[in-house]
């Protein structure tokens, strides 16, 4: 369940190549010499995918062992490189969030961009690390997980309540036995007093 890279691109309406606006990649698990080529590869594939994602559409493409998810919204396209286990829905909600954040922080200035921007956007880097766990990105998944935990806890509670019930049953028995014995004790003591003179 790993996100390898997140990118934001600007899609030109005509057929020209999209422009990269922000790029965050985590290539640390590759060997040192492969890293730059992997970065290039990511850039190239994301450009191609973004070019072919029409506006207002979501798309998922399988490329070698990566799933590339792209979401194009009014010319602003967010792309994520994830492995096959990352749930698709969380991926798209993550892309949604990235796009919203980008529009909040940069407004409409991205429309004027013509060349690949080289500045890093710290939010994207944080997002990359934070959202390695799909539950963070997808609230639904988080809620579902918490609900499942709650259900487990409740099951345990019910088990302990049942054990308590058994103990209470044994207590009832013992207390009723006790009450019977004490009654006999009282009767005996009364009988001792009444019966005639002790000779």
């Amino acid at each position, binding site marked *: 369940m790993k996100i390898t890279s997140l990118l934001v691109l600007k899609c030109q309406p005509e057929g020209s190549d999209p422009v990269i606006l922000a790029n965050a990649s985590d290539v640390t698990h590759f060997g040192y010499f492969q890293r730059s080529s992997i970065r290039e590869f990511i850039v190239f594939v994301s450009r191609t995918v973004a070019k072919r994602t029409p506006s207002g*559409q979501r798309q998922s493409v399988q490329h070698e062992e990566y799933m*590339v998810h792209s979401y194009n919204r009014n010319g602003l396209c967010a792309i994520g490189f994830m492995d096959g286990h990352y749930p698709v829905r969380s991926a798209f909600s993550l892309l949604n969030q990235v796009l919203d954040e980008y529009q909040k922080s940069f407004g409409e200035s991205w429309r004027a961009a013509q060349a690949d921007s080289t500045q890093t956007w710290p939010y994207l880097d944080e997002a990359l690390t934070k959202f390695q766990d799909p539950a963070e990105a997808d609230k639904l998944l988080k809620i579902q997980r918490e609900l499942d935990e709650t259900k487990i806890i*409740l099951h345990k509670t*019910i088990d302990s309540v049942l054990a308590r019930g058994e103990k209470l049953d044994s207590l*009832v028995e013992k207390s009723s036995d006790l009450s019977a014995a*004490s009654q006999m004790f009282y009767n005996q003591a*009364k009988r001792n007093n009444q019966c005639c003179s002790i000779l």
Partner: protein
Amino acid sequence: MPVKPAQSPFRDRTQEFLSVAERLKKSSTSGLNQNGPSSSSSRAEDKRSVVALQSEFNKRASKIGLGIHQTSQKLSKLAKLAKRTSVFDDPTMEIQELTAVIKQDITALNSAVVDLQLFCNSRNEGGVSSDTSSHSTTVVDDLKNRLMSATKEFKDVLTMRTENLKVHENRRQLFSSAASKDSPNPFVRQRPLAAKSAAGASNNLPQWANGSASSSQLFPRKQMDGESQPLLQQQQQQMVPLQDSYMQSRAEALQNVESTIHELGTIFNQLATLVSQQGEIAIRIDENMDDTLANVEGAQGALLKYLNSISSNRWLMIKIFFVLIIFLMFFLFFVA
């Protein structure tokens, strides 16, 4: 019923009627010379026009019957085609043409039957015998019933066709999503054959969405799809199902969450029931302990009394005095 398809088996008795009319004319002209010819001729004309109307009605009815029969034959052909369709051998073009033709036929027949009915009503108001009018109304009703059954069959065939298409779509999606994992080419996600038939299906669908009465919900969504650029058509095919599957997965997740919450509610209820039952048990235990306490206190009082009685010497002294006095008496009586 005398109206059968492809031939009109009604007995044509116009000749006999004409001869009867001649005879009557001859008999009436002997009675009324001036009005006779004109009235009888007009009556004969009326009768002839009645006969003409009758045969006109019959001709139309027989034409309509023939049309219905042909339409039902075409319908059976369409049904066979629709049943036969498989994933790769889709005779969609023929099915499309046949559907269009049948639809036209049915509408034409419908209007013809309505016309026939109006014609029959207008003629019946001209004061003909009740037999003829009942005969014509029955004929019209029969034709209407047959037309209705043909339309129903048509609808059934269309539903079957849409179901088949849905099944094919599912199968195709299964295959295409399995193939995508192995395919090295990242941007073509479908087998070309399946893509072609999918393209074919999406082209058919706009016609159907407009034409057929029983289109399913799948089609209007794919209709938008069919109007997209031909360049990206293959990917587009996959994208609308992806949008759908995205939305569907979200909907599914929400439903899961809702059901989980519901289950949690049930579990809480059960917990509450258990705890309240155990509360009763606890109260019983409490009562038992109270009883025990009372008993033991009573017993303790009794024992104290007993102790008192044992530790006091009164009885003993009385007993000793008694014995002494008895001895004294005995001594006094027997010695003195």
